[in-house]
């Protein structure tokens, strides 16, 4: 049997489109700007790379400690440290312009206008294949999750970004909400080309010796295999509520994890924390998906998308 077709179109209604050679991408905040792991990972084989969350001005982030391991998971409170949009466009995007793998820029604003400005800056930058709008970061005091917590502001951010760019726009949702389908429908109606979910779940850890919170910022975002069932169910729920492509994320570490998300309705997946455990995880997953499809006699990945719905 010839190799199964793995490519996916994540922005079918966008003029530019967002065609991935395969459905496995590296999640924002865990893969830097794409270059960091290049000595051990053939990054050009990835479906896409989502770079670190980027704000208008550079940010220093939260105090140490910023990371802590929990059972099967990780709490992080990086606090959106990043180089800022100017440095990203000046220093990083030109590198990406020569890459085969599409790079998507994750953006975060403190206000709705910020999101619009960020989108405008990226619109003409060569090397940028799409925008992922982060309305779901639990680690910043202003912006981020605040906008993702209610359908109205989530839609406003989406519309503000869409108004300023023709690039494909993915909106990344937070699981820290009562009804995620409500938010998903709102951003779809506001023009999102695709929806990614989930970002991290809020959590904390306490150092029993010092009797104080472990993280410098007290609260952090939980990621890793521990959150997979939560993420999977949210993808399933959202897939039944919207028509735009969905990108599943949260605790994916193996090909069978990824296939579960695809069967729950995701057209593609993002791998984050599992990259820390093994930088080759995304490519191992890709090979695993291919093996599965060959074994099951599946010619095109689209046959599997939403198979469990």
């Amino acid at each position: 049997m010839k190799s199964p077709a793995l490519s996916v179109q994540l922005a079918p209604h966008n003029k530019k489109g967002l065609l991935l050679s395969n459905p496995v991408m590296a999640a924002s905040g865990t893969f830097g700007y794409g270059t960091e792991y290049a000595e051990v990972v053939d990054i050009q084989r990835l479906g896409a790379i989502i770079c670190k969350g980027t704000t208008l001005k550079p940010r220093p982030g939260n105090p140490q400690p910023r990371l802590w391991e929990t059972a099967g998971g990780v709490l992080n409170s990086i606090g959106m440290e990043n180089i800022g949009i100017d440095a990203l466009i000046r220093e990083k995007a030109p590198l990406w312009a020569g890459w085969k793998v599409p790079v998507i820029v994750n953006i975060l604003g403190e206000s709705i206008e910020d999101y619009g400005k960020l989108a405008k800056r990226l619109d003409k930058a060569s090397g940028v294949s799409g925008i992922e709008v982060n309305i779901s970061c639990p680690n910043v005091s202003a912006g981020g999750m605040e906008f993702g917590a209610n359908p109205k502001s989530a839609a406003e951010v989406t519309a503000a970004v869409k108004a300023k760019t023709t690039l494909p726009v993915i909106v990344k949702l937070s699981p820290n909400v009562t009804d995620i389908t409500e938010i998903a429908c709102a951003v779809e109606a506001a023009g999102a080309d695709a929806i990614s979910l989930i970002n991290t779940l809020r959590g904390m850890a306490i150092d029993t010796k010092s009797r104080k919170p472990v993280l410098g910022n007290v609260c952090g975002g939980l990621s890793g295999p521990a959150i997979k069932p939560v993420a999977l169910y949210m993808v399933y729920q959202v897939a039944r509520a919207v028509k735009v492509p969905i990108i599943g994320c949260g605790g994916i570490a193996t090909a069978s994890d990824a296939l579960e998300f695809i069967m729950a309705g995701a057209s593609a997946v993002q791998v984050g924390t599992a990259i820390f455990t093994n930088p080759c995880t995304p490519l191992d997953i890709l090979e695993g998906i291919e093996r599965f499809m060959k074994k099951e006699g599946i010619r095109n990945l689209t046959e599997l998308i939403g198979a469990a719905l």
Partner: protein
Amino acid sequence: MKLVNAPIISNTEVLPNIYLLQARAPEIARLAQPGQYVMVRCGEGYDMPLRRPLAIHRISKDGIFLFYTVVGRGTAWLSQRESGERVDMFGPLGKGFEIYPSSSNLLLVAGGVGIAPLLALAERAIDSGLKVRLVIGEKNAAKIYPERLLPPGIKPVITTEDGSLGQKGMVTDILPQFIAQADQVFVCGPLPMYQAISKTGKKLKNKPTQVLLETVMGCGVGACLSCSIETRQGRKLVCKDGPVFEFGDILWDKIAAPACSGRC
């Protein structure tokens, strides 16, 4: 940097709760510099998502040694691995110690398991014909690095807090005796030791001093920003810009030690 599934040659408890692990990893050994580290995958599957950073203790032609204290579940798991098994290592990572071309006398100051990266440095320096003075500080004699394991040519000066071996007191107490002859100083130990040195900082003032810092790490390659700290030279990533830093660049009252939750 390489990802290596390295066969374990030996992994033995050489001091109470402290292990010496020798692994065959020529790919890493070839590139390794003293002060660099590897990220070791611990546990089965993904039950411990974070790799553990461990300094490269000694470098041989076809492998590296690690020297580690069992403090939590990762190091406990590692300590149970036996020769013949494999351990997944990622490295060498970070920026190691830098010996200046003009230096001929080096002072190495080890607090506890902080001797780990300093032995690689001592060996490298001796091989290059430099003079090395190694000072080791520990709580008591039972925890002092076994002499039989030291590389040839190294006779450490020992201090113990209870006086059970060598000079009684803290390693910081005896530094003034050796500072004058040293062209460069290299320190590795627990944070309180660094903070003590920074308080008596005047004694070190004119000597270029390098120190190895620890923060919890996610990626080890500068991709996740977990290890970012503020320094006098701006923000730095411990995993990539470090773990070795100029002592004077660190804002010692702002550094936080990793927590020790779940270790009781």
